[in-house]
């Protein structure tokens, strides 16, 4: 390793040092497509006798139409209500009693169904997923029941939680196209209005093999898994092409801002978004690292320097919501009520300007990458089901699942110059949106 580091340093001008110094996880990836259009991705890892199975459908909240917001998520709940051979709540009993875990997740562009089971239970997981892909069973009683469950989830996670409203408002402020403007949870009115007939049309439009990818990761034999996949999924009829959704956004030319009062917030917050590169852009990785470097909770820059020693910022978080379509870099700051909000926003841009004007040191960028990648390996690579999710995302949203593992190499190879370049390219005042959240006891005159 010492030899490699020396060798890399000597050729640093032509090759980024990190590509030698940091090892990234790699597992084999095989992709093929069944006759009915179902994409299949296999990624073997025989180090433990477990498997991750994910079926991802290329539909999410961005595919929802006006008056039907929240439906993609409601539909995800309905997928657990039983199918031809699986009774209501059967999925959870089958999986738990097989020693496994399951989850359903609705995002803006995809919806995923995730199972992790011991390797010998792979046929069960494939059978369960295939059964609901071909024969979902929903009746009026459990349809109403799940509407109530989703509404309760909205009350608990959004309507009753400080600053949760801000995320929804920021989304509608920073985008102009309706498809992008709402969160997957949707609105109570739309959830109330939706009827059982709509379930059928949505299922028909999006839940078919030619709009999905099946990913299997872990300990399996390739010929065996291929036979099982044909047996369980091969007979499902191909559907028509799903309807296209226009998610395009005009380029933002002027800063947008708005203020909301949050009855649950005791102190004010600032929520910001910038136009940002999507999953297919080579700028995605440097942008995510830039956000981490400047805005992470305990990073040296924003958190330590804005109001240094006076605790102006009570908490800070940042990230990149990278999609196939329009994407955003997001920042939230919860701050002391006596600090003027304009001052804080100016300070945020001062931090960004500093990166634009002063090339970050190699050491700082290496530290950021090391911390970021280690966290990513723990959360996204170690659990087989998370690895399957990553492969599903890259299969549906990027078009090539093997890019999932290559993305780690791209993160590891990011240079200070790339970070500076994306700061200049994306983090402009005119391409930002700012949502000010007023605490419940805060007066308007205190703000400016």
């Amino acid at each position, binding site marked *: 390793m010492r030899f490699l580091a020396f060798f890399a340093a000597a050729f640093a001008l032509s090759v980024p040092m990190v590509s030698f110094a940091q090892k990234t996880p790699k597992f084999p990836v095989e992709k093929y497509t069944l006759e009915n259009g179902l994409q299949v991705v296999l990624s073997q890892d025989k180090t433990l006798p477990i498997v991750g199975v994910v079926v991802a459908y290329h539909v999410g909240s961005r595919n929802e139409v006006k008056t039907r917001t929240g439906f993609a998520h409601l539909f995800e709940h309905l997928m657990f209500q039983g199918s031809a051979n699986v009774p209501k709540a059967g999925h959870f009993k089958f999986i738990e*009693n097989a020693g496994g875990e399951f989850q359903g997740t609705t995002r803006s562009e995809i919806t995923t169904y995730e199972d*992790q089971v011991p390797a010998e239970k792979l046929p069960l997981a494939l059978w369960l997923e295939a059964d609901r892909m071909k024969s979902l069973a929903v009746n009026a009683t459990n349809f109403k029941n799940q509407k109530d469950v989703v509404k309760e989830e909205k009350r608990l996670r959004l309507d009753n939680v400080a600053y949760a409203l801000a995320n929804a408002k920021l989304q509608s402020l920073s985008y102009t196209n309706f498809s992008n403007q709402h969160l997957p949870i949707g609105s109570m009115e739309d959830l109330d209005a939706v009827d059982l007939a709509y379930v059928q049309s949505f299922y028909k439009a999006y839940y078919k093999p030619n709009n999905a990818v099946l990913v299997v990761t872990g300990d399996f034999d390739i010929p065996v898994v291929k036979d099982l996949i044909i047996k369980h999924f091969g007979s499902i009829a191909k559907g028509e092409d799903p309807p296209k959704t226009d998610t395009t956004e005009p380029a933002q030319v002027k800063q947008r801002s708005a203020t909301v009062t949050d009855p649950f917030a005791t102190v004010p917050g600032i929520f910001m978004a910038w136009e940002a590169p999507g999953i297919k852009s080579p700028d995605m990785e440097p942008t995510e690292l830039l956000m981490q470097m400047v805005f992470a909770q305990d990073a040296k820059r924003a958190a330590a320097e804005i109001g240094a020693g006076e605790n102006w910022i009570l908490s800070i978080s940042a990230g990149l919501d990278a999609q196939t379509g329009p994407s955003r870099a*997001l920042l939230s700051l919860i701050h002391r009520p006596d600090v003027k909000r304009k001052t804080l926003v100016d300070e945020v841009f001062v931090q960004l300007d500093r990166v634009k004007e002063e090339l970050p040191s190699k050491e700082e960028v290496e530290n950021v990458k090391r911390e970021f990648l280690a966290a990513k390996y723990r959360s996204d690579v170690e659990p087989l089901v998370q690895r399957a999710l990553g492969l599903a995302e890259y299969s549906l949203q990027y078009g090539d699942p093997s890019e999932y593992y290559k993305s780690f190499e791209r993160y590891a190879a990011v240079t200070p110059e790339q970070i500076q370049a994306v700061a200049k390219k994306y983090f402009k005042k005119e391409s930002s949106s700012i949502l000010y959240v007023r605490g419940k006891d805060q007066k308007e005159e205190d703000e400016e």
Partner: protein
Amino acid sequence: MRRQKIAGFRALMMGAATLFLSASGHALPPEDAVPSPPPADLAVHPVPTLVTVRETLPNGLRVVICKNSRVPLVTAALGIPAGQSMTDSKSATMEDIVETLINQRSKKYDNKEFAAASKKIGGSVSFSARKDYAIVQGDAIASKTSDLLGLMAERVLRPKFDPKIMEAYVSQLKGRAEMIAEALKAGVIDEKFDTQGRLMRAIYGKHPYAFTEVNDETAKNLTVDTVLDFYEKHYRPNGSLLLVVGDVDPVQTLSQIKASSFATWKRITPPVQKTIVNPSYELFNRVFVANREKSVSAKVSLGNAIPKGISERDMSAIEVANAIIGGKIDSRLFNVIREKLGYAYSVSSSVSLDELASTFTIRVESRTSVTGKAIKRILAEVKEFQDKPATAEELSAAKNYLGGKFLKSLSAQSTLASELFELEYFNHSANWLTGYRDRINAVTLEDVQRAAKKYLLPGRAAIVVQGDEGKLSEELAEIGTIQTD
């Protein structure tokens, strides 16, 4: 990529489907179609053995290094025989006090500097004291293994005990002991009351596992000198274990350790083992009430001790029995107490298998009006479980559940390291991990019933109820002898 999502759906609601929706393009069976059973399992794949290097250094420190290359990360743990089991009634929670002070700062770093140094290696280092040992754990990107070990040594071998901080902390603990004593005397308990800690005191009496809170006796003896004395007598290489798991070269890592301050850590004579007062295993239920006037709900913890020295076979049987009675969602207690009777939103049981004794616990939180009924029904369910054998389906589901949970625990390096640490620290048999599923699968219905009868709680339970005593006492008196401290 940050994933914007809403997730976490777990289908728990029960009901019967009657009207199926049809969806064209998808083949739906006729309504009278007989559902097909799930497919058969594949052959069971074994858990692979890890390449492991073991060596005891001249100072007595045992070193174990396991190669695990799934991700380019490393995890390490240093266990020291300085846990709760080394305390007695005069030194209750001393293991925690020392841990808190060690965590304040080291000779080289204050807390902030320490966190920054950990971040630079892509990881973290934490230190905590547990029942049977104190443990410093850390993780990092694999190429920074040497730095990680350096930070762990800095934390534990080079603490800086600042006399001013120690004085302040000792004084704060004495104040806390007085406050707790007064609150209990006055019967004024707030929502932060430690029900689980109270349960451990009720179950274990004078046994070290009972000492979860600073008591009057400890407070009396607590000085800067007694704290330092505990550190100096218990923090030693002989008896400690250093485990490294990750994408490392075991031989090279062993050389790094031999050249580090772990190798020069000075061996000392082990302290004399204190006499352990075993918990009582009498056959009667004891009820302890922590009064919270006007509380609309009650938190209940029921438990009993399982003596030291049970066989591996019984240990596996207890785990299976626990899964059937309340250790998973589809369990008897969950299905009856929550789903059928609606007495509680959550009810669960657990088994903590520790060095000096094990503990079986059931926890439930219910509204005041049905708390008594919920406890009685729980005890009745466990009694029935002891009297009638479980079904073959229950046994099979419990075995699968435990096997899967175990495999999952090996899939993350941090939890794999925890499992390996337990294996090595307590010198379990070599096949402790690879043979876990075989041991669980060997459990029979008779084993489960025997374990339930011998080790679970009806008639021997300590029951701690945190709730409105005025409304609960009549029914609680029917359950067992109401006791105070």
